[in-house]
């Protein structure tokens, strides 16, 4: 994080300031909504893409003043950004301010040579592919459109277009997934030599169609799947990947920092601007969350208004709790003595957790041990004063 961004993130509540160096852009459209998904998405509606992008760019214009001149990162997420009509997608990417890292999320089935070149031409430096699994039966449970070969082909297509920073998303803990399935998924992913891997345990969120259909089975399998997170970490670190965040791994070759810079900034507590439906911004003492309705979003911006959104005020203590919560997810030491953070940390608990082998002291910072990271939620809750 730059000194300026770091300073900005420490400012007191209710002040939105300029100089923000991280931008998130939400393109909500998808070919199909997967059962487990709880992102803001809109299925189909190809005819709406152009109008949505008009609104998105209008919002970018309105908010441009909070952004610093050169940005560090831009992240285009969804939905399936690459499902967006090529013309609308091109206009979006074209309008984005330049940044050192520009990531676009893509689903394998959308990755054609034409798309790959479109992204390249638009200075996209990093592609995050929603692979999720290489097992057909698990992809079926997850209701993914792409098959295993689509994933492989999409990686090759991107490589052919010159992409040298590709991330794969994998999901584990899928109903019906055996330990062997997990091993095979990891091996298949590693065979593609991605620069970065995000591995998430499937979260069956209450109220989703998925939980309705698979909740009971997941509960039954909970015990068997308990060790999956450990298997993921062992396998990937064994293959030379750095476990730099709870669910994220990167190759550590040739001096390149292959961590996801956009997310890394957020985990370090930087401010970020989010535009698009459902997008969240954290700007000093304010967190804004745009409402999820595409129609209302488009209408508001067409009328020259700000998009409908809710605002949450974050006081210094709340931001300190968040910085602790996020900072402890990383493999780099977190400075508990920093202004503000000190007040929310229970020194006795820190001592206890250190003795219990869950926390390591590194200079004036702390870092969770591997086991501490597996129990990160409980450890963080324990650490809070």
């Amino acid at each position, binding site marked *: 994080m730059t000194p300026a961004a770091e300073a900005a993130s420490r400012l007191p509540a209710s002040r939105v300031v300029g100089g923000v160096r991280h931008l998130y852009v939400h393109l909500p459209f998808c070919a199909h909504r997967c059962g487990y998904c709880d992102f803001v998405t809109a299925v189909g509606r190809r005819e709406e893409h152009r109008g949505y992008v008009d609104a998105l760019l209008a919002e970018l214009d309105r908010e441009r003043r909070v952004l610093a001149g050169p940005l560090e990162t831009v992240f285009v997420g969804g939905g399936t950004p690459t499902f967006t009509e090529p013309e609308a997608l091109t206009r979006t990417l074209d309008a984005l301010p330049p940044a050192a890292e520009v990531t676009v999320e893509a689903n394998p089935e959308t990755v054609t040579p034409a798309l790959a070149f479109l992204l390249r031409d638009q200075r996209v430096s990093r592609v995050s592919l929603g692979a999720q699994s290489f097992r057909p039966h698990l992809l079926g449970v997850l209701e993914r459109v792409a098959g295993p070969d689509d994933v492989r082909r999409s990686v090759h297509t991107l490589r052919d277009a010159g992409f040298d920073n590709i991330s794969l998303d994998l999901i584990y803990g899928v109903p019906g997934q055996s330990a062997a399935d997990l091993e095979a998924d990891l091996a298949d992913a590693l065979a593609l030599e991605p620069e970065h891997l995000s591995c998430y345990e499937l*979260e069956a969120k209450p109220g989703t169609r998925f939980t309705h259909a698979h909740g009971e089975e997941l509960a039954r399998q909970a015990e068997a799947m*308990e060790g999956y997170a450990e298997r993921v970490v062992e396998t990937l670190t064994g293959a030379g990947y750095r476990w730099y965040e*709870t*669910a994220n791994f990167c190759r550590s070759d040739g001096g390149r920092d292959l961590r996801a810079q956009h997310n890394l900034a957020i*985990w370090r507590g930087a401010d*970020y601007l989010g535009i698009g439906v459902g997008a969240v911004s954290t700007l000093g003492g304010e967190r804004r969350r745009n409402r999820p309705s595409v129609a209302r979003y488009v209408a508001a911006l067409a009328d020259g208004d700000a998009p409908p959104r809710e605002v949450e005020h974050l006081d210094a203590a709340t931001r300190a709790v*968040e910085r602790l919560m996020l900072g402890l997810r990383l493999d780099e030491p977190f400075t508990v003595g920093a202004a503000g953070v000190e007040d929310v940390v229970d020194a006795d608990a820190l001592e206890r957790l250190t003795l219990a082998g869950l926390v390591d002291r590194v200079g004036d910072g702390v870092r969770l041990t591997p086991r501490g*990271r597996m129990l990160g939620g409980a450890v*963080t809750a324990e650490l809070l004063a």
Partner: protein
Amino acid sequence: MDQSRIRNFSIIAHIDHGKSTLADRILQLTETVSEREMRDQMLDSMELERERGITIKAQAVRVQWKGHELNLIDTPGHVDFTYEVSRSLQACEGAVLVVDAAQGIEAQTLANAYLAIENDLEIVPVVNKIDLPSADPDGAAAEVSELLGGSPEGVVRISAKTGVNVDQVLDAIVERIPAPKGEPDAPPRALVFDSSYDQYRGVIAFVRVVDGRLPTGSPLHAMAMGTDFDAEELGFMAPQRVPVDALEAGEVGYVVTGLKDVSRLRVGDTLTTRRGGARAPLPGYKEVKPMVFAGLFPTDSDDYPELRDALEKLKLNDAALFYEPETSQALGFGFRCGFLGLLHMEIVRERLEREFDLDLLVTAPNVAYSVKEKNGDWVEVHNPADMPRDPEEVQEPYVRAQVIVPKDYVGAVMELCTERRGRFDHMEYLSETRVLLTYELPLGEIVYDFYDQLKSRTRGYASFDYDIAGFRDGELARVDVLVGGEQVDALSLIAHRDAAYERGKLLVERLREEIPRQMFDVPIQAAIGSRVIARETVKAKRKDVLAKCYGGDISRKRKLLEKQKKGKKRMKQVGGVEVPQEAFLAVLNLDGEKKK
């Protein structure tokens, strides 16, 4: 009223044999309550009594019948409230014994009849529910007359529900029950057989005037407690309070004492006048001794003073309730309470929760133990945690239990009683199909889960009653529970040596289910002394972290974290292990749960 025209009586019956319905019909038939005012279970004023269809507290109501003044003193039917019954009976000259025409004599019928006979009461036997299709009035009448030694013709056959022959019951009361025989001109003596607390008027005493006359406004003296007060108001219940100028010898009524301190007047005391008062009190009641004990703890420790006040108020009209402060490392500040039995315990708990709006944790009940110390002294122990690890000798209370059961279930009942260390006493056929079994059983076995087992093994057909038979030597062991290597005082229990292993095993198994997984392995052990008899482990969590956390998730994740933090604050720390209060509750209610 001339004493010769007064009749004081109780109605005694097994639960559900129609005591309250008969009382309701009597109130209607004597026009004490108008049709408009009538509601079911008129005399059961507590919400709890109506709901459960039982009478807990004695109530006295005066009715007029053919020129006579009849005082009906309602009594509880359940075994736990035998002391209430005997109290009420002491204020009476007679009792109406109600038996269900379809069920016949039950265990409580026997217990109550014996009590009435012990108190020299004239018994008017009544067979109720003759309108039921399954009724066998002749069979029931034969059983009753066999029991009481009269002729079946003397048994009044009624339907309290429809009112058939209820007038014959009233006539029989007037004809057969003797009038009171006190001294109208002697210094006054009135027996306090019950009391209640009115927040505006203070303590209200229910009395039976034995000798003399108590006029309103007279300065009174409670002879046992030495408390002085003025009779602010005297009167009788009909069933609401009706003030009168004076209560005369032989009459039953109430006295508004104005006393605000509930501990200053005890049930069983004798009231007299301060001037020209009686020299000697009436024979009081035998002190009732609680035999079942449990810890009561407020869920919220801030409620401790409220719990203390509530117990004090309940104690006023529940002489059998015993309590003393108890501190538990696991559950905080509370009270060790003594009860007459399990129903008494449940009633007290429910009254505390309903009438005083308290949230309570109740530990598993245990009985009183008598322990011989090294110096040869015998002490009574009410809490397993206070039991010495290696006592010289221990005695436990035994009961004489009577079980009435259809003959097909005799084997099942005998098997159960034997399993529960029972000693067979005798067996008797009440009729061709029904058998009375008498056993001596340790009370500790009964408070464990005897009722449930009896019910399930006899398909609910058994009826059961008991009275305390005294203390006997017991081969008992104290089982301690250790969580994370530390003893949890509230979970200690005392069991017979042969059963200790099973009980300890059950307890640690249940705890393993209830204690959430922690960041480290948590051993749960049951031990007798230093010998571990059962062990379970709550395996450490392997993973407790939310996989995904990006810019859009932060608020939600923070809230989840704060919730997790808050949840931890509600946990009790035992040996460095966070134990949710619910875990204690679930374990402590192990027996209670099964009962429902």
